[in-house]
Every structure is written in C-alpha cells, then in structure tokens.
C-alpha cells in the first residue's frame, strides 16, 4: 500500500532529475538568505550556479550540529519569522538546544512524509493511533500526530509518561497503532503485565518505533511481547523530525528515505569522503524541499549504509540499513571503539535475558573499566550460585570475543535499572565526571 503511489514509485531517473532541480533551488535560497551558507560557500569557492549534476554536491562543505548552535536561535532560518508557523527544538543535552523552524509548506510536507510512513507501516484510516511520543518542543509527538491525522486515523495524543493511564486508554479506546520509542514499548508491556493485562490481547497490531537506536533482537522482543508488527522509523529534528525514513511492513528490512525531499549520502566519518554504494559510514542529508531551515550536507552522526537492492514493496526510494549507532554514541574503552548497540544485540541473543541493561564505564588506576549490568528475571534465575556465575562468565566471554575487551558483568535485581519513559539511558560514563 502507498500513500502517494506516484511519488513513492517514481523511476530512478525521475527522482534524480527532481533532486537536481530541487537542490539547485534550495542552494539559491540559502545563498540568498542565510549568511552562514553564503560565507561557507564563498570560502569553498562555490556558488549555487556551479551545481550542474548531483555529483557536484560533494564540493559543498558539511553542516554540523555546532553550526546550528553557533547560529542560535534563528541564524540558519531561510524564511522570515512571519512565514515560520512552528518552532521546535532538540533536547540539547550539551549546552543550548538546536532550534528549527517550519513554514506552512514545511508542515504540510512533513505531514505528507509521515502519512507515507504510516501507510508503509501498514496503518490506514480507521486505525486508532496511540501516539506516546512526547508532545512539546520535541518533534516526535506533533510530527507523528499530523501524519496520522492526514491518513484519516483517529489520533490519541497521549504524549509520554503516565504509563498506567496509557494502558487504560489503550485498552478502553482500542488503540491499534502504537507510536513510541522502542524502550517505552517494552516498558508498556511490562507495566501492563504487572497490572495483570496481557497487552497481546489488546487490539494493537502495529508499532512504529524510533528516536533511539535499537536492534533486530529488540524488535523480536517487542513483537512477541506486544503481539504486533514493529517498524523502525527514522528522523531527526535538524532535518525534519520523525518521518525522514521508515521500514515498510512488507520487508521490515531497511528504512526507505524519501528521496524526493532529501538527498542522502554515506561518508567516511574520518575523511569526509563519500563512500562507495553499500559501505557503512555516517549518514549525511541535504534537504531539498524545506523552506524554514534547509540543511545542506548535514552530518547526522548516525552510522548506517545504503541497501542498494530494490525492495519487494515497490518503493523506489533507497533504503538505509537500521542505524547501528551514532558517531557520538561511540564509546572509546581502552582504545577500542564500542557502540552500545553492539552489546545490546549480543545480550539479546542470549536466551531469556531481558532487554534492560546498562553499561557503566569508569576509570580505575588510569584504566577504563566496563561493567555490564543485567537484570535477573525468573527465567535466568537459578538457586545455584554456579549457574548464575556461568551466565556472567558467558557474557564476559562473548564481549571479549566480539570487542576484545574484558568487562565485568553485574547481575542485578529486576526493575533496579531505571526505566525510561522517553529515550533509554543505556550508558553511564563516569569518566567524564572526574
């Protein structure tokens, strides 16, 4: 099923020529209205007229998150405030938040892309969309909301938190589609079970989860615990918010990125060079329809690769492999690059281990230490010490084999790792504090 069949199945050449035309227009716009881009282009001896083909994009310097902070709050806006109808901002864990503005046309395009996402995930009018993404400055809530309304679904604007009420409403209102972070989906299932409700018996059939990296094993966990099909959605406020890309329900393998609105590139995060098709690297996105705050070659810091093969769903838009981490999530432990997602997928492969874990990194005598905390549930619990110690040893050995580093494993009581109602806090890095 498609929301916009014509554009979602556009032949490759048509996408490319549309991209070039829209790119040229976007570059003209930012060159004329945003001093930051004009200066950057000038320094690189580049003018928008130099863009003759899509390959010329490589000549343009990257835009970084720090450029957004430097131009806080409105410095990168390419439309005057009287055309901006909405302002969102990122959570800004370090310093000032990053601010984005949308014109009415941006809001319409966003709703269009989110509508495509809902339909690709198998939703349709008549569905009851339980939207547990946060409403507010964060783009998640409102982004999903507008798309769900556009396809004619009935939207419940739950926002995050208040889990008991969420479960009651889900049950009473007959929610069929759940939109929230993957960790919150599992938290909901757990909280429902505590109240004696098996969430699998409710009407939910589809989950659309994003805003944090998750693994294939976590998908299996969500699908079996909630009795739904779970799709990965991609987005970031700097580019749009949720809806930049989505997995289709047909393949559940890779996220289609809407190429009539974005030009994605995969680069080597060290050298900045564009990588050959299919190689893993950092995702860079150029927006080509945005008016409020167009982004030129924005470095997302997300690690992925293109899946070049055509998809069985018939969408022409290229797929991105599930994000395997972020360049800034990467931990360097004793000189080894470690992505929390690697450890997660390893833990999820061990039968009956809960997806609640935490990594604690510390430094003792100038040596980094990694402790993995894993909750002990009834399935892995044994009344014999040696069985539990074997489990710890097994996890340690697996980590050693995969990452080459020695860690310690701490078995902890259930529910002792803090549950998150938004993005899960998987890593506690005590090295930064000292």
């Amino acid at each position, binding site marked *: 099923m498609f929301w916009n069949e014509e554009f979602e199945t556009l032949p490759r050449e048509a996408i490319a020529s549309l991209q070039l035309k829209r790119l040229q227009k976007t570059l003209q716009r930012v060159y004329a209205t945003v001093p930051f881009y004009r200066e950057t282009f000038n320094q690189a001896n580049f003018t928008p007229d130099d863009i003759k083909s899509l390959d010329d994009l490589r000549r343009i310097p990257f835009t970084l998150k720090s450029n957004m902070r430097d131009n806080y709050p409105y410095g990168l806006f390419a439309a005057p405030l009287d055309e901006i109808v909405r302002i969102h901002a990122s959570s800004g864990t370090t310093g000032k938040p990053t601010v984005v503005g949308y014109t009415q046309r941006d809001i319409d395009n966003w709703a269009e892309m989110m509508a495509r996402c809902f339909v690709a995930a198998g939703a349709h009018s008549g569905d009851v969309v339980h939207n547990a993404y946060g409403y507010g400055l964060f783009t998640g809530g409102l982004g999903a909301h507008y798309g769900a309304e556009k396809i004619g679904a009935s939207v419940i604007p739950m926002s995050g938190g208040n889990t008991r009420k969420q479960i009651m409403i889900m049950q009473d209102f007959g929610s069929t589609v759940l939109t929230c972070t993957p960790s919150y989906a599992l938290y909901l299932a757990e909280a429902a079970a505590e109240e004696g409700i098996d969430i699998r018996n409710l009407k939910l059939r589809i989950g659309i989860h994003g805003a944090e990296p998750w693994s294939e094993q976590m998908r299996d966990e969500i699908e079996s615990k909630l009795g739904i099909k779970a799709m990965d959605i991609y987005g970031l406020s700097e580019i749009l918010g949720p809806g930049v890309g989505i997995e289709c329900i047909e393949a559940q393998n890779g996220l289609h990125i809407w190429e009539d609105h974005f030009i994605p590139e995969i680069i080597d995060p060290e050298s900045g060079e564009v990588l050959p098709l299919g190689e893993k690297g950092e995702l860079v996105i150029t927006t080509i329809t945005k008016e409020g705050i167009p982004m030129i070659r924005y470095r997302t810091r997300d690690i992925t690769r293109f899946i070049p093969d055509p998809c069985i769903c018939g969408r022409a838009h290229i797929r991105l492999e599930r994000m395997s981490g972020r360049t800034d999530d990467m931990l360097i432990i004793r000189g080894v690059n470690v992505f929390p997602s690697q450890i997660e997928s390893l833990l999820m492969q061990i039968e009956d281990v809960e997806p609640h874990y935490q990594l604690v990194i510390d430094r003792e005598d100038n040596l980094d230490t990694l402790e993995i905390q894993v909750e*002990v549930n*009834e399935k892995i*619990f044994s*009344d014999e010490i040696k069985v*539990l110690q074997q489990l710890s040893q097994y996890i340690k050995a697996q980590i050693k084999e995969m990452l080459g580093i020695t860690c310690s494993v701490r*078995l902890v*009581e*259930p529910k002792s790792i803090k549950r998150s109602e938004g993005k899960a806090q998987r890593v506690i890095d005590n090295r930064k504090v000292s």
Partner: protein
Amino acid sequence: MKVEQISIFIENKSGRLAEVTKVLGEAGINIRTLSLADTSDFGILRLIVDQTDKAKTVLKAHSFTVSKTEVVAVKVPDKPNGLSSILQVLDNGKINVEYMYAFVERSGEDAVIIFRFDDIEGAIKTLTENGITVLKGEHVTRI
C-alpha cells in the same frame, strides 16, 4: 518426602535482606529456616517458610526474583558421626549434593539437615533404603 524451598535473588547492597524479611513479616509468614549463599555482587537467599506460595507471591509483588525448588529434609542423630554416616551413604550411592544447610529445631535429640540434590528421586531412594529418616514436607514447614 520433599520440602518446598523458595530462593530469592538479592543484590549485594545494604538493606536488601531486611527488605525480604520485612515483606514476609508484614504478610504474616514465618521463616522456618534459611541459608544465604553469596558472591561479591549478589547472593541467593534460600528459605523454608510456613506458607511457600504466599511468600512467593508477596515477594514477586515487591519485584524480587523468586523461584521455588524442592529440597530434602533428613533427620540426623545429634551426636558425633551423625552427619558423616549420612554423607557416607550418599557417597556410596553416588548422589551429588548441590548444597546443604542445617535446620534450627527447638528441642529433641535429632538435628535436621536440608539437602539440595540434582537427582532428588534417587537421593530419597538411597536414603530411605539405608534406613535414614526423610521428613515429610508438612512436618518441616509446621515445626
């Protein structure tokens, strides 16, 4: 011939043991005997109580990981060589003891030892065949 025991996973941090006994006490459950096995990070508390199922339910409601296992209670003469003779019988029968602990009894000439075996049926058979008294579950939980 078997006795129900509950085992509880406890993190090695202050107050956890007290929390378990508080939960049980508030539920009116009496602890008959206990043993604590510990490592540097965690411990396993093994309990024999007067109301096993209720104990499991209330502890689970307080987010503890609890399991129920079957152990064997054996009457041991409270005199030198008492335990040794029983262990000899088990050894001869090639019965492996996972762990054991002693029961606290108020009076009497016998002590009671709780055994956890891999092969519980085989253990009971070997013990009874050798004239050793294996106590009934009800007897133990109602002492």
